[in-house]
């Protein structure tokens, strides 16, 4: 009604052109459709095209490979620490270097391995599982990967230059403050946090929007695969918890660089403010690592028992309630700081309560196995290893939720044993299982079953050998984060066993890597659905084409591939010559909109470079905040500004 005549004319011309656009359907299908989609979705070649890609599969693969490299690096540091602790009064590693090693180990494992690897797997698999061709905001997704990479390079670059942080992975003030940590080590830790939090938050927004808006038609929330549910809960948890550590570390760095007094008790600040903010993030973080793994377990159990997961609504409610309860537990990390009595009681109760939904999930998986026909292939073995190990870790968790015991065991190896049981047993075992499971989808080849089984038994037994004795050394009073221990206290044997176990674990990781690399070239060619699984990622070839699905699938049940009779229902009508996906409604997943997918672009990479320079320079001068923000802002504007200024018959993102 407000349009001037020339705009109205153009509107009409564009409407006519719209009629002629090519779309998939009965008239355009099969090889002809696939060739055209390939041309449309294919990214530019060469190194620039590689940097500009917005394909979730490429970004997901990079995330996974990078995170596994950091796992190896962090694991190598663990071996060094175990060598030092193999004998009492050892002088292999100095106290200062030991401080750096455990700080690097913890920071790497938490920020550079555990969270990113889960996000990487999700970024790769979730769009396939939901039956769509791209994540939401694929450029943001690319940006998130580069921020993560630069954060990791900052930390490890500092380690190589001998300025690694030495303040523990949770960087307690006042130790990390300006008075007790002069130099740049603590600043590097704090900025590494900024990088990885921005990355995790960006990926979380990508995942939430992908899961809520891009599901295949008919995939209502009640039919969504449990891994998607787990990642939805995790992404929301990231959104609520990671700002806490970003805020805390910004306040730390400003205490250190521009003289604010947040944590300085001489000027009415409070070191405990750090602990509250840090653990408000840090406790949910544990579940951010663990819940994706429960999603993996649900996927594996379902496939290898040939039965839908028992009591799906209970599993979903357990995921959601774990996500909520995780925000009410942070104070149990602070029992030793002195709290009001009512605080002790409340957080003990809350910490014990969170065991309930977790136990419900475990009972649901056991019931699925009981009622199904379990096939003991490698991914399923990892699930069984997970259940045994995680339950032990969970039980020690209930033990230390009790304040008197916690005060006794705080900062001993008992705690080290507990959280490695929970994190390696609870997250790394399912991860290794799911990597074996999705390996054929990602690479098009199967991993060796024999090597996989040997690998499983070595890591499972090696793990118990490493970490079970730590319960004993902890009970005997051995403190964590101390570079050596005296002879004659009964600590020699458990420590020697732990060291031997650590090398067994390391050898099984090497075996996993060898299996992964050799299978890349020698593995049996994988069909589209080698495990006979039910979710949609198996409805396309292995590896999937760049456009994922030739037609968007329609979902009519919770286990789609088990319920279709040979033919997969699909909708038609998406564009073929431009990248386009289908958006559906949030709850019922009815078709809602067609959405253009951004073209490949170098701008997310350039923006991440500008932001990286900004963050790293700000360690050295507060003025970098002002000068660094300008190129970053310019890069972001260039990222969003349309590269072609003419109106198209249908929207495209250039």
């Amino acid at each position, binding site marked *: *009604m*407000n*349009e001037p005549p020339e*705009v109205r004319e153009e*509107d009409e011309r564009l409407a006519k052109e719209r009629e002629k656009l090519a*779309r998939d359907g*009965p008239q355009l*299908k099969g090889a002809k459709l696939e060739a055209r989609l390939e041309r449309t979705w294919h990214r530019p070649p060469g190194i620039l095209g590689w940097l500009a890609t917005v394909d979730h599969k490429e970004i997901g693969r990079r995330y996974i490979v990078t995170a596994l490299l950091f796992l190896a690096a962090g694991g190598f540091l663990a071996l060094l620490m175990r060598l030092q602790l193999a004998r009492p009064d050892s002088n292999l590693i100095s106290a200062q270097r030991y401080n750096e090693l455990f700080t690097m180990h913890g920071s790497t494992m938490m920020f550079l391995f555990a969270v990113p690897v889960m996000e990487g797997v999700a970024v790769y698999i979730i769009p396939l599982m939901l039956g769509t061709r791209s994540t*939401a*905001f694929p450029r943001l997704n690319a940006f998130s990967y580069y921020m993560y990479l630069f954060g990791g390079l900052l930390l490890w670059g500092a380690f190589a230059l001998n300025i690694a942080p030495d303040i523990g992975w949770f960087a307690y003030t006042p130790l990390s403050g300006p008075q007790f940590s002069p130099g740049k080590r603590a600043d590097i830790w704090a900025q590494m946090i900024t990088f990885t939090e921005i990355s995790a*938050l960006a990926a979380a*927004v990508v995942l939430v*929007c992908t899961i*809520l*808006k891009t599901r295949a*038609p008919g995939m209502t929330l009640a039919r969504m695969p449990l891994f998607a549910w787990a990642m939805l809960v995790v992404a929301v948890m990231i*959104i*609520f918890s*990671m*700002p*806490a550590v970003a*805020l805390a570390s910004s306040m730390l760095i*400003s205490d250190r660089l521009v003289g*604010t*007094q*947040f944590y*300085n008790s001489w*000027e*009415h*600040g*409070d070191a405990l403010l750090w602990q*509250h*903010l840090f653990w408000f993030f840090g406790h949910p973080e544990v579940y951010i690592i663990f819940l994706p793994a429960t999603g993996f377990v649900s996927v594996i159990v379902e496939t290898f028992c040939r039965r839908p997961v028992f009591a799906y609504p209970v599993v979903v409610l357990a995921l959601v309630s774990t996500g909520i309860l995780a925000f009410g537990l942070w104070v149990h990390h602070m029992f030793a700081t002195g709290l009001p009595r009512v605080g002790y009681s409340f957080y003990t109760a809350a910490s014990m309560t969170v065991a309930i939904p977790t136990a419900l999930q475990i009972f649901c998986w056991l019931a699925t196995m009981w009622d199904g026909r379990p096939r003991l292939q490698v991914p399923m073995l990892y699930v069984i290893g997970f259940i045994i190990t995680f339950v032990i870790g969970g039980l020690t968790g209930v033990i230390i939720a009790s304040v008197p015991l916690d005060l006794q065991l705080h900062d001993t190896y008992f705690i080290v044993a507990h959280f490695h049981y929970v994190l390696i047993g609870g997250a790394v075992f399912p991860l290794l299982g799911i990597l074996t499971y999705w390996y054929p989808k990602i690479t098009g080849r199967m991993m060796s079953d024999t090597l996989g089984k040997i690998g499983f038994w070595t890591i499972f037994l090696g793990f118990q050998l490493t970490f079970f004795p730590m319960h004993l050394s902890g009970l005997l009073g051995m403190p964590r984060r101390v570079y050596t221990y005296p002879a004659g206290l009964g600590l020699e044997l458990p420590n020697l066993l732990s060291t031997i176990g650590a090398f067994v674990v390391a050898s099984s990781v090497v075996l996993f890597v060898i299996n992964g690399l050799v299978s890349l070239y020698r593995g049996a060619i994988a069909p*589209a659905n080698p495990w006979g699984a039910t979710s949609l990622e198996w*409805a396309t*070839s292995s590896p999937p084409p760049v456009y994922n699905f030739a*037609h*968007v699938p329609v979902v009519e049940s919770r286990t789609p*591939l088990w319920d*279709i009779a040979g*033919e*997969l*229902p*699909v*909708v038609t*009508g*998406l564009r073929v010559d431009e990248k386009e996906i289908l*958006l559906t*409604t949030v709850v019922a997943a009815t078709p*809602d*909109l*067609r959405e*253009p997918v951004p073209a490949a672009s170098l701008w997310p990479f350039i923006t991440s470079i500008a932001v990286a320079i900004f963050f790293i320079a700000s360690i050295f001068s507060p003025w970098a905040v002002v000068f660094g923000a300008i190129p970053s802002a310019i890069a972001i*504007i260039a990222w*969003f*500004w*349309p590269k072609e*200024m003419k109106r198209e018959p*249908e*929207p495209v993102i250039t």
Partner: protein
Amino acid sequence: MIPAPRFTDSVADLPTHKFGPSSLTWWGIIGFMVIEGAAFGLAFAAYFFLMGHEQGWPPEGRQAPDVLAGTLFTILILLSEIPNTMIKKAAEKRDVPAIRMLMPLLVAIGAVLLVIRGFEFNSLNCRWTDDAYSSIIWALLLLHTTHILTDWVDTIVLWLLMRTNLGWDGRRLVDTDENCLYWRYVWLLWLPIYLMIYWVPRL
């Protein structure tokens, strides 16, 4: 091995833009609002945590900030909702000429707000290095300044884009609509900060 397709409905006639929760970017913006809201919420928690340690607020020997600049800022940012709502409605009606006319006004208001903000920093009666109280009120004001600055730059860029021929595209109208939504969030978040910086120390 890949199951053959069975064709059902066509989605070719679906629209390519809608306002509100159907839009993908709407969800993205809500996501970033929640992230910022969480950061602000925790900063508020830090403020009250530090306040709980003190005998008086502001601590003894400090003077509460002067209210004039902050109050002017609050009045102006509340008034900015008038053109903001007009722009939002114009976007929903595809009234591009109205958007092109009103957006410079919003940009100008943003510029004036940033100038007043400079005076606000000057009326806090403390430096961020003085004590924890000073640090946290500087932090709150700085966080909100970042918020307002980013949305101001965003509004300028969007205004320039709406001046081009692309302004008639439906998706650009959705962008405009969502930018207005975000501006509402910027001023809504300011209200508790205003109370915490200027009035809680006067209680």
